[in-house]
């Protein structure tokens, strides 16, 4: 019976093909002051958005965000982009997220995805995981993990949208 189910799933995937263009789902997340907002309301006036999933205990995530922070002024001037950093820290660390974000003076919009509902809805397996969205809010590129220097590839994807 189980084999049958598996075959059915795999079969389905092949017949239908996999639709790759993800849109942002409607998932409730929290601002750093505890208010709720929906992920479908992410907005940057028709300009691109970078979304990065991260956690306070994740070293490569912090490396990625600090490299975004280093480049932000230049990137913003060039493309008008917005960076949204979504912390998947649970309530253990969500209070620490706030002190970390202010202390590091990050120029990002930061939200809390405490029970990982948005992470699941976007099928993120591990952090860091980065999305690039075009001006219409469609996901045009995604990448998992961070190697030093990756930020160049991310901004290259954003630049492509500007053409």
């Amino acid at each position, binding site marked *: 019976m189980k084999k049958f189910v598996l075959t059915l799933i795999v079969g389905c995937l092949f017949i239908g093909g996999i639709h790759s263009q993800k849109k942002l789902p409607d998932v409730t997340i929290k601002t750093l002051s505890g208010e709720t907002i929906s992920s479908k309301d992410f907005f940057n006036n028709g300009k691109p958005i970078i979304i990065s999933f991260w956690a306070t205990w994740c070293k490569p995530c912090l490396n990625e965000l600090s490299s975004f922070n280093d480049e932000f002024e230049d990137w913003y001037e060039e493309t008008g982009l917005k960076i949204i950093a979504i912390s998947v820290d649970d309530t253990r660390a969500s209070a620490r997220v706030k002190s970390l974000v202010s202390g590091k003076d990050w120029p990002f919009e930061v939200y809390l995805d405490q029970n990982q509902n948005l992470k699941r809805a976007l099928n993120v397996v591990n952090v860091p995981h980065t999305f690039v969205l075009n001006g219409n809010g469609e996901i045009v590129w995604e*990448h998992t993990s961070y190697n030093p220097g990756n930020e160049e590839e991310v901004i290259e994807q954003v630049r492509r949208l500007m053409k």
Partner: protein
Amino acid sequence: MNKVYTYLILLSLCISNSVYSQNKGTLTGSFESNNQIYKNDSKIGARAPKDKFGSNNYLKLDYTYGNFRAGIQYEAYLPPLLGYDFNLEDNGIVHRFVTYEDNDLAITVGNFYEQFGSGLLFRAWEDRQLGLNNALEGVNIKFKPTNYISLKAVYGKQRKYFDTGDGRIRGIDGEINVLDALKASSNSTFLLGVGYLNRYQDYTGPLEDYPSSVDAWSARMDFSTGRSAFQFEYVRKGEDGNASTPQIVSEGEALLANYSYTQKGLGFNFSFRRLENMIFRSEREAVNNELLVNYLPANTKQHKYSLANIYPYSTQAMGEIGGQIDFVYTFKKKTALGGKYGTNVALNYSHYNKLEGTLVDGIFYSDSDFLGLDGSKLYRDFNVEISKKWSKKLKSTFAFINLEYNKSELEGGNKGMVKSKIYVADILYKLKKGKALRTELQYLNTDQDMGDWIAGALEYNIGSKWSFFVSDMYNSGVSDTHYINVGGSYVKNATRFSVSYGRQKEGLLCVGGVCRMVPAASGLTISLSKSF
């Protein structure tokens, strides 16, 4: 019944997927596979299972069409990796749901995750690394009668491996945004919330007045204005039973309070938590991480470096009191201490004591004042971390961690208080053409337990796709053992493939302060993950 339900979802997934080009539905999903081939390694006490193989696999599919969403998760443990519960040895579709959602109403039937407030009262969640999934199977309703009130209701049984537990859970939670409700236009936020939860599990034992039905409630507040923010949550839980005692466990309570102050370049946070008799499961007999109803993470900093994670604090749900202070500051660019790029300093201090009282047959009898700190010390952590970018090519992080870990209380045995100092240097150097080198050096110094440890890692990255590492953890104090690992990974967009070979130390693996014991293991690990 479950099977019929599964097939219906599958069928609808399949049909909608194959006709997808004519409509606006989308199918997304993810796949994760972690495999290990084990070998015996007497030096570290690693014993390969008979099969010499472990494999955990997860396939998740979600289909969205208009206001509807449906999904499944297939899991296969063939057999489970070492350290995961042997009850997981099975495969099948364990998670399935259908959701209808519009602007102010969402109804989910099937399996779902949910959380009330900070989770102190209720949290249904998944963590694959911990082998933990306590999703509810039942009904979840979320309703927003106005834009400043949100209500949630849950009903169902919790997942237990490939089955559900015996106990039934029902709960409601409400939150109001007070300033929005009063139409006060200000920069402040004031939220009030209350939650109620009941668990029912039949009791057929001999004790009179034994509680088969357990009530718990919570009240919480969230207030932020200008640079300051306060958070406060209180939970009370009725008499209950648990696996470690046949007696009735007294009422439990939990208090969590937070204050934070933030401004540009500075963040400060103080938090306090007290727990008493707060083990809460949907089945009294459950053990380990099974069927947890509430979420009680360790209220301490979760460290990023391996040696700092040898002594991780785990929450003492039956009785603990303590707090944490966190301070993060950036010295601005172009100042004496900031240099060209700025310098970031993070300080963190946490301290936890046992509640004073006695634990008899698994029941805690408190005999301290509510805020009494006379119980023995369980854990103390003071740590500093300084990160600095020196040039376009060079970045460094230095950390110092001073830990006191009451091993006898937290793990059992007679090692007493382990006092350790940990030093970390983490240096990143970018080479030409997208290549980068990262080195990590760590030293743990202690006179107790296993004595000193030295760890080193070297990581070499080529572009965004390739990464290689070699690492060693060496116990120079007692066992004179090396834990060497080598490996590499390949990433393309949202697909990651990795291979590594080496030894894994026995110990506690903690994610978010919930821990599981990992046995010593040696062998080859192969992992693949993909989202689509």
